[in-house]
């Protein structure tokens, strides 16, 4: 029971972690990414199509990532160049993406919402012999797909890059003050767009983890609000990689618990599914009150 719960919590966390890390990077560059949901569904779709066409999961994941980078970059261009409000552009972008995908699925591919591609290769499960049978440890690290291990690598790597690399410092400077970093000669808008493309690519990989990892098909509502949970996670983790990833694992655990309790019965999954969002409101409220007491804000 506990093994199953751990294993499913971690599996459910992978898409969240990837999307939330992308969102955290973009947030560090100074933009809140509401479009994560749209980038995820793009990645999920392209992953399934290309994996089906080439019978190779790695190519599928790569294609999904590239498509996500394009969609993230395009959205960022509207925000940075046309000065579109980031929230509205993100919301509109999600509506547009889901509209286009829903339209194309029905009118070109002739399916209503679910796309099953023959010959698609799912993400392999890496079973570690010996460890697989140890009770808790086996559930923790054995039988995971490559994207899980990518998450494990990505968290410390990103933390280091943001703290120490030129790219990370410039990115954070752009986020702290766009005009100040521009006056120092940084191409701040391009730095933001780069952050947006990375955010799109990572979120799209999260989508690939959904479509090629868990089920092996594409369904137009398979993200089911995960982009917004990822948004909640990087707010919860204050856009730092490790806390953000841990928040995702927590939310993934909620999700696993909810599925588990649904099968047991007698408990509503609806309430559990609101927990991530409620957590964000609490965190924002506490941060706001603390900042307010320091007198940091002058405009009410």
């Amino acid at each position, binding site marked *: 029971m506990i093994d199953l719960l751990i294993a499913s919590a971690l599996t459910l966390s992978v898409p969240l972690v990837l999307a939330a890390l992308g969102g955290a990077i973009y947030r560090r560059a100074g933009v809140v990414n509401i479009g994560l949901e749209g980038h995820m569904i793009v990645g999920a779709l392209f992953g399934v199509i290309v994996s089906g066409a080439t019978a190779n999961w790695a190519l599928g994941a790569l294609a999904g990532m590239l498509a996500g980078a394009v969609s993230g970059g395009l959205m960022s261009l509207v925000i940075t160049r046309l000065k579109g409000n980031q929230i*509205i552009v993100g919301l509109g972008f999600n509506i547009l993406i889901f509209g286009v995908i829903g339209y194309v699925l029905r009118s*070109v591919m002739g399916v209503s919402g679910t796309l099953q591609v023959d010959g698609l290769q799912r993400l392999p499960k890496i079973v570690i012999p010996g460890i697989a049978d140890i009770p808790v440890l086996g559930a923790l690290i054995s039988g995971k797909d490559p994207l899980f291990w990518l998450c494990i690598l990505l968290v410390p790597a990103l933390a280091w890059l943001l703290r120490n690399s030129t790219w990370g410092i410039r990115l954070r400077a752009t986020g702290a003050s766009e005009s100040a970093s521009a006056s120092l000669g940084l191409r701040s808008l391009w730095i933001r767009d780069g952050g947006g493309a990375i955010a799109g690519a990572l979120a799209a990989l999260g989508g690939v983890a959904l479509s090629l990892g868990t089920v092996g098909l594409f369904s137009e509502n398979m993200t089911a609000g995960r982009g917004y949970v990822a948004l909640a996670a990087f707010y919860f983790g204050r856009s730092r990689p490790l806390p953000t990833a841990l928040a995702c694992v927590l939310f993934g655990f909620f999700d696993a618990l909810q599925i588990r309790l649904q099968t047991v019965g007698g408990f509503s999954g609806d*309430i559990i*599914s609101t927990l991530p*969002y409620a957590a964000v409101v609490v965190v*924002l*409220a506490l941060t706001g009150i603390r900042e307010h007491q320091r007198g940091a804000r002058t405009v*009410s």
Partner: protein
Amino acid sequence: MTTSTSGSPVMQERSKPGYSLGRRLGSATARIGRNAGLPVAIALVVGALVLLATGNDPLSVYGRLISEAFGTPSRVNATLAASTPILFTALAAAFAYRAGVFTVGVEGSFILGGLTAAVIGSQMSGFPPFIAVLLPMLAGTVSGGLAAAVPAILRAIWAVDEVVTTLMFNFIAVGLAGWSVQTFFLAPGQANSSTEYVAESAELATLAPPGQASWGLFIGLALLAFYAIWIRCSTLGFEFRAVGSAPRFSKAQGLRVRTVLITALLGAGVIGGIGGSVHALGLVHRYSEGFSAGFGFTGIAIALLARFNPWGILVGAVLFGALNSAGATVQLFINMPVQIIDVLEGTVMIFAVAAFTLPRLVKRRSKRMEGTFS
């Protein structure tokens, strides 16, 4: 980390006082055309590209959409019925944005308001018609306001960014509604989870019986007219416009910034709650999953396109209502999935907030923005 998402989503237009009503109407129309024309044109082009790429003739599809929306009296009736909920949500969004408060939580208020009205309305069988309508409406209004209460308090007292909190409250509202329907109000013998139908006496009467447009449309129009007069003629309305265009200046002048912020957020919730109640009592007559087809977000798109102008809100609500009602029937005749409507709506939303100006102007404007809101 310190950048704020708040601040007015679009530039506020200054209205010039002293002109006659006719000239003001004329200049308002010109302004709407300038502000809304380009996003709508881009959306039509994007839609046309998608249609072309999938082997449809855009012109004939658009023509078909127009005839399906306005061709016969019964189609006009359907368009008006589809316009009613988004008239409320657009008004709610415009109300808050006018004060520079950027709520995306109307969707949540709409849902909770609709659920409350549907639940109370289903208990109204013995009551006289007037009370049977009024009570659920009031309850829905209150719960719509309650859905916005926490973000409103957080914003007004501790300056907590309202964009993310209201967005989060949408999801909380959906979860709460789903849970309470499952646990307390589930109608027996229904395939999907929904509440009981409201009592007949609690239904808002339809305008032309076979059609679905109800008196709710006039409630919306009355609210819109009230908003138009109130924002122009009341003290608080003046303060709304002042805080919306220059928050620091307003604060320095001693305007009631905190009152404005709290009224803006609660008011948007209340209007959203009325919208949900009208939708529940006037059209669907119960609450079920998927009660709001993203009406709160469509409302945002309309409010931004209209730049908060009442006439613009009315025109925008009818246009989007036409898209929704025509899109639903057109797909019965030709191979054109209804999702093309989402493509148009999303594109309008994206480009409604984009600033199409010469680069030099953009720079000057953004400098002004940072000066105002940082």
